[in-house]
C-alpha cells in the first residue's frame, strides 16, 4: 500500500511492529494523520488500535518502525517527551487521578507550569498564583462544557464511569495539545453528551487541533472523521472515507459484518 506523504501530515507512522511474547499486537502498520483533521482508527477488538496509540505516545516500545510527529522522529521516546511536543493521549479505561479533585485533575494538565519547579513555587509565589488563576479560568470553562463543573470539588475517584471518561477527555484538551489521541472517548458517555462532544471535537478540529480517534460507534466515526484507517490483526486493512469503507468487501467481512 502506497503511503502518500502529504506536506501537511503532522503524525506519520511507518512500518510499526510490536509483539508481546507470541502475540503480534501490531504487525506492520503505516498511516498518516493530516494536520487539522479528525482521523478515525477503527477495527475489531484486539485489532491493535490501543497498541498503536500506546506505541505512538511512547507507552510501549515498538520493535520496528518509525513514528514522526511534525517531522521529528519520536519513536520510542519517553512519554513525557512526546507529550511535551504537543501530543496528548487519553486512556481507553479512564485513568482519573483519584485522590485529586476534578478541578485538580484539570490543573495538572497545563504543560510547563511555573510553579511546577519547587524553587519557583517557593520564591515566585505571586507569579505562580497569577498563572494558577489563568489555568483555573480555562479549567472552569472546560468543566462547564463537559457538564462536570458542579462536581469540580469532588474527588475524581468518586465520579461515575461516564464522568471519568469525560474528565479524561477534558483533561487531555486542557493540555492544549496539537495532536490528541483519543481511545474510545465516548464509550459509556450518554448519547446527548456524546453528541455534544462530537460537536466540540469538530469545532476544535476547525481551530487546528488534530485528532486520532478510536471509536466503535460508526455513526460517530462517519459524522466527525475526515479520514478513517481500518485495522485488523495488527495491520491496516483499508483506509478512506467512512462511507466508502462501508462498501469495502474486506472491511465488511472483518469488522462491519453483514
Amino acid at each position, binding site marked *: 500500500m502506497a503511503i502518500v506523504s502529504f506536506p501537511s501530515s503532522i503524525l506519520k507512522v511507518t512500518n510499526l511492529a510490536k509483539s508481546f511474547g507470541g502475540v503480534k499486537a501490531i504487525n506492520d502498520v503505516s498511516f498518516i494523520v493530516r494536520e487539522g483533521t479528525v482521523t478515525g482508527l477503527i477495527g475489531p477488538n484486539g485489532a491493535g488500535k490501543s497498541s498503536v496509540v500506546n506505541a505512538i*505516545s511512547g*507507552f510501549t516500545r515498538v520493535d520496528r518502525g518509525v513514528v514522526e510527529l511534525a517531522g521529528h522522529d519520536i519513536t520510542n521516546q*519517553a*512519554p*513525557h517527551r512526546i*507529550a*511535551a511536543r504537543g501530543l*496528548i*493521549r487519553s*486512556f481507553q479505561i479512564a*485513568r482519573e*487521578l*483519584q*485522590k*485529586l*479533585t476534578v*478541578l*485538580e485533575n484539570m*490543573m*495538572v*494538565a497545563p*504543560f*510547563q*507550569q*511555573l*510553579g*511546577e*519547579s*519547587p524553587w519557583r*513555587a*517557593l520564591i515566585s*509565589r505571586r507569579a*505562580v498564583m497569577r498563572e*494558577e*488563576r489563568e489555568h*483555573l*479560568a*480555562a*479549567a*472552569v*470553562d*472546560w468543566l*462547564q*462544557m*463537559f*457538564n462536570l463543573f458542579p462536581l*469540580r*470539588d469532588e*474527588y475524581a475517584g468518586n465520579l461515575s464511569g461516564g464522568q471519568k471518561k469525560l474528565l479524561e477527555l477534558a*483533561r487531555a484538551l486542557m*493540555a*492544549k495539545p496539537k495532536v490528541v489521541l483519543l481511545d474510545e472517548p465516548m464509550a459509556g458517555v450518554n448519547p446527548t453528551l456524546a453528541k*455534544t462532544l462530537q*460537536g*466540540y471535537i469538530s*469545532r*476544535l478540529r476547525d*481551530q487546528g*487541533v488534530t485528532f486520532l480517534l478510536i471509536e466503535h460507534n460508526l455513526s460517530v466515526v462517519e459524522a466527525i472523521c475526515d479520514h478513517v484507517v481500518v485495522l485488523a490483526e495488527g495491520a491496516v486493512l483499508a483506509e478512506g472515507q467512512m462511507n466508502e469503507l462501508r462498501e469495502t468487501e474486506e472491511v465488511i467481512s472483518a469488522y462491519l459484518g453483514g
Partner: protein
Amino acid sequence: MSSLVFYLLTVAIFFCIYCIYGWGLNLQFGLTGILDFTYITFVAIGAYFAGVAALQPGNGGIGGQYILGWHLPFPIPPIIGGIAAAVLAILVGYVGLKRLRSDYLAIVTVSVGQIVWTLIGNITPLFNGWDGLAGVPQPFNSVFQLDFNHYQWVFLVICVLFAALGFLIIERLTHSPFGRVLRAIREDEDVAAALGKNVFRYKMMAFVIGSIYAGVGGALTIAYIGAFNPSGFTTMETFIIWAAMLVGGSGNNRGMILGAFLVPVLFNEGTRFLPSPPGNPLLAESIRGMAIGLLLIFAARYRPQGILPERKTVFRLDGLPQGGEAGGDRLVPQ
C-alpha cells in the same frame, strides 16, 4: 532548673526534630508515594557529616578518628548535613527511581540502609566506627557561655526556628503546582507522564528534598546530643517516623505534627516512665515497640488516612474571568 523542666525541654527539642523528619518523609511518601524504608539512614548521614563538619580535626586518639574535622560554626554543619543526605539520595534515586514500580525502590532503600550501617560501623576512619562521634560542639555555646541546663533553652529556640522554616517551606511546596504534580504521580505515574511530566525527575526531587529534611534533622540531633553512633539509626527509628506519619495523617503536614507528638513523644518517650521490672531491662524497650505497633494497627483499622487526613484542595473561583457555558462561544479557553 528542675530535672522535670530539663526533661520537658529535651522532649520539646526532639518533638521539633521529629516534625522535621516527618515532613521530609511525608513529602516522599504522603505526597509522592515513594517507599523509603531507610529514611533514618539519611538522618544518619546528615548527623555524621554535620558532626565531622563541626568537630576539630580527629587525632585518632581519645576523640577517635573521622574524616573532615572542619570545625565550622553553626549553622554551616546542618547545611552540610542536608547536602550530604541529598547526595546520598541522588545516588540511591538513580538506582531505585528509574523503575516504574515503587516496590523496587523499597527494596533498594532497605539494602542501602544495611550497607551504609555496616560500612559506617566497620570502617572506623570514616566516623569512628561503632563507637561513633562524640564531643560535637553545641551551636553558639561558646558565645553564650551558658551552663548545660540553661543552654537547653537556646537549643529549643534553634529547633523551633528550624521547624518553623521547615514547615513554611514544606507547606508551600505541598500546596503548589509542584506538590500537585507529586500527588498526580502518586495516583498514577502514567497519567502524569502522558501530561508531559518527567516522572523520574519529580520523584527524584521529592526524594532529595525529603532527604534534606532528614539530613538537617540529623544534624540538629547530633548538635544537641553531641554524639552519634550506629545504634542511633536502626530500623526501629525508621519505623517510628513512619508510624508518626501514618498515624498523624500522610499527606498532611499538620497531621505530621500531631503524629510527631503522639508517636515519638507520647508513646516512645511516655512509656519510658512505665515501671521496668528488675532483671528484665529490655522489656520496656519491647513494650514501646509493641505499643507503637498497636497504635498503628488501630489507626489502620479505624483511621486509615491518619488522624488528620490529606486535605481536599478547594480552589476559590470568585473573580475569575467568566467563561462560556457548555456550548458557549469560547471553545478553546484562552
